[in-house]
């Protein structure tokens, strides 16, 4: 028969474990709570990395060490918690001003954020360029403003694009399509996993646009213009599709929202497993 002291120690041990477990479960719920609170404002999450999330769109601006995703724009399917689909990505490595790459040649990058606006200032040796990203529920406005008239080449990339301004890209593999002095670029994409969708770039002034295949499945869109200012309004829409439940589950698991939902479950399992070890130690 157990002694009174031994029973007390056992009870103390259980109480200690219960308190620690509750603390761990509460911690695991924080990311989900944070995600709900962070709707409709830019949130910093890493070195120079920010994201904005609305019901329809998600915009990610990747951290300083990365040259792509400056920003990367995703769209959510209507009325669905399904993983968002990448609409378009701005590539700072290949985007150049007067021949200087935003990523490789800028001396310094400075950020300012307020409500739905993210300002990124690129400091080059002899000029500055400010990139303004304003996120709305239905669209994203990308603004470029320089300290003088300069030659810009802004490079976007997109996945599984099939058609641009009525031109079927599958007929132009290995060749580029050029549009002179246009103010709007419509594009469509089609993915086996997520279905199809449409998007558009509305430009504040006529520019030259070159479209070509970058690597397999990735389309490069380069906007070329001379001046000190350009505004690009990005819009996108994804058609919901029927996919197998397995595909749906796997694909849905790999995103932040579901990971945030999964975390409390993972914490609960770990805490339960921890109890077995706790008792044996």
């Amino acid at each position, binding site marked *: 028969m157990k002694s009174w002291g031994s029973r007390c*120690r056992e009870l103390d*041990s259980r109480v*200690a*474990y219960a308190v*620690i477990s509750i*603390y*761990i479960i509460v*911690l*695991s719920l*924080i*990311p989900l709570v*944070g*995600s709900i*609170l*962070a709707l409709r404002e830019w*949130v*910093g*999450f*890493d*070195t*120079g990395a920010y*994201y904005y999330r609305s019901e329809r769109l998600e915009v990610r601006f*990747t*951290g*300083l*060490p*990365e*040259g*792509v*995703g400056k920003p990367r724009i995703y769209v959510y399917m209507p009325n669905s918690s399904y993983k968002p689909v*990448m609409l378009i*990505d701005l590539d700072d490595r290949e985007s150049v001003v007067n021949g200087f790459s935003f990523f*490789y040649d800028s001396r*310094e*990058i*400075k*950020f*300012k*954020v307020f409500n739905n606006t993210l300002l990124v200032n690129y400091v080059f040796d002899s000029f500055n360029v400010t990139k303004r990203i304003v996120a709305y529920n239905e669209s994203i406005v990308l603004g470029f403003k320089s300290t003088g008239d300069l030659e810009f080449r802004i490079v976007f*990339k997109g*996945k599984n694009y099939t058609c641009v301004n009525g031109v079927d890209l599958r007929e132009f593999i290995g060749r580029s399509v050029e549009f002179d002095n246009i103010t709007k670029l419509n594009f469509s994409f089609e993915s086996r996993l997520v279905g199809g969708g449409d998007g558009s770039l509305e430009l504040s002034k006529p520019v030259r646009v070159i479209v070509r295949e970058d690597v397999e499945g*990735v389309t490069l869109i380069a906007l070329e213009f001379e001046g000190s200012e350009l505004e690009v309004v990005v819009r996108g829409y994804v058609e919901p599709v029927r996919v197998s439940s397995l595909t749906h589950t796997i694909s849905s698991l*790999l*995103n*932040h929202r579901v*990971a*945030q939902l*999964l*975390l409390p479950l*993972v*914490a609960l*399992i*770990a*805490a339960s*497993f*921890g109890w077995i*070890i*706790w008792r044996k*130690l």
Partner: protein
Amino acid sequence: MLAALLRLLVAPFLGHLWDIKTMQETIYYTLKGENVYTLVYTLSRRVSESTGQPLFYEGYAYLPHLALILTPFYIVYIALGGDPQPIRASGVIATGLVYEPQLYMSKDVFSFMTLIKMPMIVADSLIVYILGKRDLRVAVVYALSPYAILITGAWGMFESLIALSLLLSMMLIERGRYVLSGIAYGFSLIKLYPILALPVFILNLRGKGFGALASFTIGLIISQIPTLLFLLLDPQSFVNTVLLFHILRQPSGLTPLRMLNLAENLTLTSIVSLLHTAISIAAYTTIIVYVFKGGVSLVRGVTLSILYFLAFSKVVHEQYYLSVYPLLLQLRMREARLIETLFLAYTLINVGLFLTSPTLLFLIDYRLLQIHTSIVYGDLGYISINVVGPLVTSPISIITFLVIVKTMLNIAATAQQR
């Protein structure tokens, strides 16, 4: 000898590139007459000002003793004709610079790795010798420990210096050499967290009389002369780099707070970290009161205070456990080896060999790390680092936290029974 040999076998070929580069830059600029704390603080300000976020440059953030210990070995390396900067990085300054593609190495990196790790390997060997004098089985376990070999021999971390300093300071108290004990303890403060053991030392020495406490304090002050000199040289840079960097750092490593990485919100993370700090202070106070009232032995008290740090610190990196591993092995071998397994598993999952092997990088060109950014188009790189990573490492962190807390309770319970 066996311990040294095992570590020397891997030392030339593997290394935690970012941390070894930090040591290299520290000695390189110190020998050029620069104040390394001023340099690191300047870079930190650039990172936080440009990003507008509470972030720091991850450079030399320790007391100057480490640089003093490593400098003679660096001088020997230079005398042998080595490249002064065998590891170079260029490009954007960021905390995640280790993932930066522009990292280059000269062929001298192998001899540099070997020589710069020598003090840590010697420290590990001395630990094995000291443990062997008390219990041969414990010494063999430490000598053959894959975790200790990985941290000291492969990565080149300096936690073995902290562990040796703590062991020596306790041994010297046993022998009544209080000034030397104070000096040895002072060297364990290279990384600040062993300061948590100071109240335990004071409480223990109090029982040995005022003379013992005064002698220990004199030794501790002598050991901190280099610290005071650098503090006087540039107080703002020193305090920011050595103290504030650690206090304000974002949670990382083997801590349940790692779950906050999925929160994707630095401001929210900072608030929760602050609440966690309040809980931690309460836990630490409980431990010190317990040590004060319970008459706990010095070894148990010091072990408890370092284990407390591993359980409650918001930054628990892979190498931290090594500083308390030899102490815990003597007290609770079963728990010590279980925690070792957890830290080892985490180290291999979290970093793997890819980022730690210069030879491999020589063969495949380090710029291939751009794969990381290229794969991002398929979201794979991003998902694996930011989504799958936290989900996989969180359970290990939670279990490690629970095991450490239970180990602390077990140590406390056995101390009470005695």
